[in-house]
């Protein structure tokens, strides 16, 4: 593990507890560098969200980690020990979720809920915590912080609530922030503000970010590295510019081609390039590559042998058919 690696996930496997054949993650590995942003992209059901929950030790009941290591800042994360994880969550790892409208407890004030995380992890007085909360509210760009601390969540818009959630996640200056689809429920204009806020916080506090998203546009703009997931596996990982300019895995290429982009289409073509077929179910036991049934390049070996990730140039890719020649120098 490199010195500046903050989080390292190795060969993570997850299954449904009472249904071992339902394998949600089938060996996922990635590293997060201090102060950098790793984006994990993929479509629904690829396992990107559960990966983040596994790191937090917050797997929903009924899911179990069957193999793999999660190392954080040089030590194994005690993901099964709730008491030990509790000390880390909110303090060293913060998390932002997808649904800001449901993320706040309706019966407590906003200030109360942000202060809670500080009081839990730091030994300071309520009055000091309140001062900290007001300062945080200002930092995350909430209007009129002195008053808004005493408001109840239902009076805030979705974007404002997400700012509160971000304030909670950043309250104890964490080393790592996991943002699981933080802007999916928001309008595009609000999304831009929230992403700017997150990037600003990163520049100022040096926090590393794991951004879980399906939106390739966001990835292109904010990520340093990108990991692409498909059906429980990581199929490709590279530095952002490289992934967009020279995607190697057929799924990554298909995904990029299917993403609408302005000024792309010529007359007479179909509007978008599609990937035929659909994602296999988690129980489907394909012997080979899980993308093979939809892959335009699939050959015999793809249906028989699981492709292991290998390095082609500076890109890690799990595909039998990608050759060195396709990689740019």
């Amino acid at each position: 593990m490199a010195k500046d690696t903050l989080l390292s996930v190795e060969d993570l496997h997850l299954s449904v507890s009472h249904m071992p054949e339902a394998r949600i993650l089938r060996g996922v590995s990635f590293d997060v560098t201090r102060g950098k942003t790793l984006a994990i992209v993929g479509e629904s059901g690829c396992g990107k969200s559960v990966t983040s929950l596994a790191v937090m030790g917050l797997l929903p009941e009924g899911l179990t980690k069957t193999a793999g290591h999660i190392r954080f800042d040089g030590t194994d994360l005690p993901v099964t020990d709730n008491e030990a994880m509790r000390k880390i969550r909110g303090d060293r790892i913060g998390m932002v979720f997808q649904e800001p409208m449901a993320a706040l407890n309706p019966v407590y004030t906003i200030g109360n809920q942000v202060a809670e995380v500080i009081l839990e992890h730091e030994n300071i007085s309520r009055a000091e915590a309140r001062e900290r909360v007001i300062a945080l509210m200002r930092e995350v760009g909430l209007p009129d912080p002195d008053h808004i601390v005493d408001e109840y969540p239902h009076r805030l818009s979705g974007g404002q609530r997400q700012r509160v959630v971000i304030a909670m996640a950043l309250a104890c200056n964490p080393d790592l922030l996991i943002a699981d689809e933080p802007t999916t429920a928001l309008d595009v204009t609000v999304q831009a503000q929230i992403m700017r806020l997150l990037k600003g916080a990163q520049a100022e506090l040096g926090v590393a970010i794991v951004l879980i998203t399906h939106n390739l546009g966001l990835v292109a703009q904010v990520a340093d590295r990108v990991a692409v997931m498909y059906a429980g596996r990581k199929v490709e990982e590279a530095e952002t510019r490289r992934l967009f300019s020279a995607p190697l895995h057929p799924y990554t290429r298909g995904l990029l081609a299917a993403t609408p982009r302005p000024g792309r289409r010529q007359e007479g073509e179909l509007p978008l390039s599609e990937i035929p077929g659909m994602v296999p179910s988690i129980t489907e036991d394909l012997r080979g590559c899980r993308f093979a049934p939809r892959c335009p390049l699939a050959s015999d070996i793809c249906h028989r042998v699981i492709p292991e990730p290998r390095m082609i140039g500076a890109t890690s890719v799990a595909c039998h058919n990608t050759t060195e020649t396709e990689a740019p120098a």
Partner: protein
Amino acid sequence: MTARRHRSTFRYIGKRLIHAAFTILGIAVINFLLLQLAPGDAAEALAGEAGTADAEYMESLRRQFGLDRSLIEQLGAFLLRIVTLDFGWSFRHGMSNWDLIMDRLPATLLLMGASILLALIGGIVMGVIAARNVGRLPDRLISVGALLLYATPPFWIGLMMIVLFSVKLGWVPTGGMYDVIGGKTGFAHVLDVMWHLALPVLTQAFFYLAIYTRLVRAGMLEVLNLEYIRVARAKGISENRIAYRHALRNAVLPLLTVVGANIGTFLGGAVLTESIFSWPGIGRLMFDAMMQRDLNLLLSILVLSSIFVVIANLLVDLLYAVINPTVELK
């Protein structure tokens, strides 16, 4: 902000008061219609077996209900009497029905208040224990117990408790509100009443205890699955704090509206409980009125009980609006 909230609170209370007034009007109309359904002359029905068809009594009833006038006029007279709290005279008891009911109301309120409190506290405690141990032994025991209690006829539990605790063990009296011969005063009297209250309260509370236990358990489990609980976990909050601070309040708040809705059924249940334990409340009064076929008294009890429910509901709604910050008073 507070001034605005105050003003909207007043407007809200005003609206609720008007609503309550219309509800009471509706209740009166339903009662009037019920009376019209009675076979034969309403006066005869009202007198029933109560008076011995005393000609003077019949005449007074006819006058009281204006039976010689048109239906609309009768309705008007009926409503007017409710507004002026004139509920007629009970020959049986030699008292006006209003005095009779008001005389008995405190005993019923004591029984109701005590049993609601017991059911609420018990239900919350049991529900929380079950929810925090979901799927394990304590949850199984509480859930099965609640299901059994919910399916048991409350009056039967009351009778069986008399058999066990009064007849066999002799711990508590079989009925009444206080010892007739003792003539206790002061604190001794209070203790005496509490002693007599024990079985009726348990009888009355068990059924609702079962309901509230199930509601709290289900509510806790539902809330514990919500997004903001996951957020709280991500903040590193302990499971105890999550259960008691974040989940409990959200799970128990809706219970308050259920209690409000149950007040009517509580009153209805009082007829049974008070009959079994000879508790001198309006339930017992209703039982006696039924046995004596005193329809006028029966209707008076029904109307006044309904009005009582309306007022209680109003208070519960206001309380709910005050303690639940997400309610926007309109």
